[in-house]
């Protein structure tokens, strides 16, 4: 397995690469009239260089390993966000709120249905009153 710093460098190298790739067509320009690409290229280049140094330093023997990562929790929280986005656009704020609470609850081992139901109902009521009715945010009930 790779060391923590190697992975840390790799991740940021990928970020630099992705942004550089999308911005590759931007004009570099001259110092007097810098093009839109001037700064992005410098920043992406700098990020790539520093990340590479970190990766190399992570290759040294005895570099600390990555601690085990949770998978279920990040996935569930992401799903909650996606559900919120989809439901808010197509159904309404109440359904979106309930979905977030339930999906959050599903990511823990010992969840209690009564508690989840109470939180879901309470939050839906709060969101409905405070944000939709009172603050009039542009979302459907």
């Amino acid at each position, binding site marked *: 397995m790779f060391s*923590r710093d190697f*992975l*840390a460098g790799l*991740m*940021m190298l990928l*970020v*630099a690469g992705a*942004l550089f790739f*999308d*911005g590759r067509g*931007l004009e570099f320009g001259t*110092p*007097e*009239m*810098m*093009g*839109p690409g*001037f*700064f*992005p290229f410098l*920043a*992406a280049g700098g*990020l790539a260089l*520093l*990340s590479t*140094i*970190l990766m190399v330093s992570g290759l040294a023997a005895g570099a600390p390993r*990555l*601690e085990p*990562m*949770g998978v*279920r*929790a*990040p996935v*569930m*929280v*992401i799903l*909650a*966000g*996606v559900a*919120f*986005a*989809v439901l*808010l656009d197509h159904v309404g704020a109440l359904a979106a709120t309930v979905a*977030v*609470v339930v999906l*959050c*609850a599903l*990511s*823990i*081992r010992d*969840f209690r249905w009564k*508690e989840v139901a109470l*939180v879901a109902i309470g*939050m839906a009521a709060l*969101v409905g009153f405070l*944000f939709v009715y009172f*603050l009039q*945010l*542009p979302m459907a009930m």
Partner: protein
Amino acid sequence: MFDLLITNFSIGISAAFSPENLLLCFVGALLGTLIGVLPGIGSVATIAMLLPITFGLPPTSAMIMLAGIYYGAHYGGSTTAILVNLPGEASSVITCLDGYALARAGRAGEALALAAIGSFIAGCVTTFAIAFFGPALTVATQWLGAPDYFALMVLGLLAVIVLSRCSMLKALIMLMAGFLLSMVGTDLITAEPRMTFGLPELSDGISFVSMSMGLFGVSEIIANYAHGTEGRIITRKIERLLPSRKVMREALPSMLRGTGIGMFLGMLPGGGGVLSSFCSYAVEKKVSKHPEQFGRGAVAGVAGPEAANNAGAQASFIPLLSLGIPSNAVMALMGGALLIQGITPGPHVITSQPELFWGIVVSMWVGNVMLLIINLPLIGLWVKLLAVPYRVLAPMILVFCCIGAFSVHNSVFDVLLMMAFGVLGYLLIKLEYDPTPLLLAFILGPLIEENLRRALQLSDGSPAVFIESPISAVLLSLSVLLIVVALALDFRARRAAVAG
């Protein structure tokens, strides 16, 4: 001089202390606190929404209420930062670092009280400083040109070397990443989209609220769930609600230093307010006898930046009222409110509308008293919130985050973006990166780029402008010195480690 000041103050007092204006100031401060506590619901949106209500009010009353909302929101933003690691406004990002650490150590009450008292002290000092020097100071900031702003922002950015919690290499990587991410969006000069991956939602850049709430708030939830700590409560024992005399004595110098920093930087356009809280944090860490405590619950790490934040919020009124030049979006909105009232903000406001100018100055002090009255009793209530099990609290926080991210552009895209940053934030925690330099570079990046490009455009490409302006020359020399010293220290530490 003093006679004039007393006359001015009495004009202000008679304007600010009318029963109607006192009530409006209270309503504004309360409303501001509430929206500040709700993550993402910013002061810009609230003030815009309330603008038509103020049409019927006299100009001074309208401004007093809107100003109350503005600094109330600044104040409320730190509450969620301390309690659940959720920065409500850009300026409270830095409060997350030590405020949340204090909360986890069972000292949430103290942290909240320090924030409240720090803001109050800053408010009082700033009110008087504005009365004495406000207009003179504005003229000074007006003379800062593009090269000077560039130099100032560079110096601010390098301060991350001081304030970062991770290794210098990793801090620089975060800085570069923040810089790169800040360039996503429409190029200022050519109006060309940059690195937007063809998404129109990114044409205005990455939403700061989505990014900061994702990196701090959502990633914290993921980390807690992933480590199976969701059943626990954030803190079991709450020792005391108010700081002891000893803690206060320790925090007071930090608050005063923060006030000074906030007052000056708050007047600068753009990132001034945010820069002031970051700079105050860096200064406190530098002067502290225990810099290792920073990030683990240092009292000065909350007191200083909170004072700076509030001082900056108040000082940002000065350029608007004395020059007609708003320094941020809220001030631009205030300028709009004044125009609707038939008052053109500009240099003549102080002389032609003394009751407006001095009324606002005095009402700032009144507003700070009210904020203290509103917030100190609430601390007990907020702290009780931490006794709720995390598995109940987390979904609530997540719902507020989602709505907050949505409400910035009324777009669900920002909710998805926040989730992506939440996962990135979790990865950063696991990979031992500190996201603070990333956020600071994200805020300062556009200012650095914009001012550098403009400086060179105006000088026809000659880099000599950065040395010709004395302010920029001094600031850039300081930046170079900072890098050299930091590198030397880093090198010595490494050699010592090898030798040892």
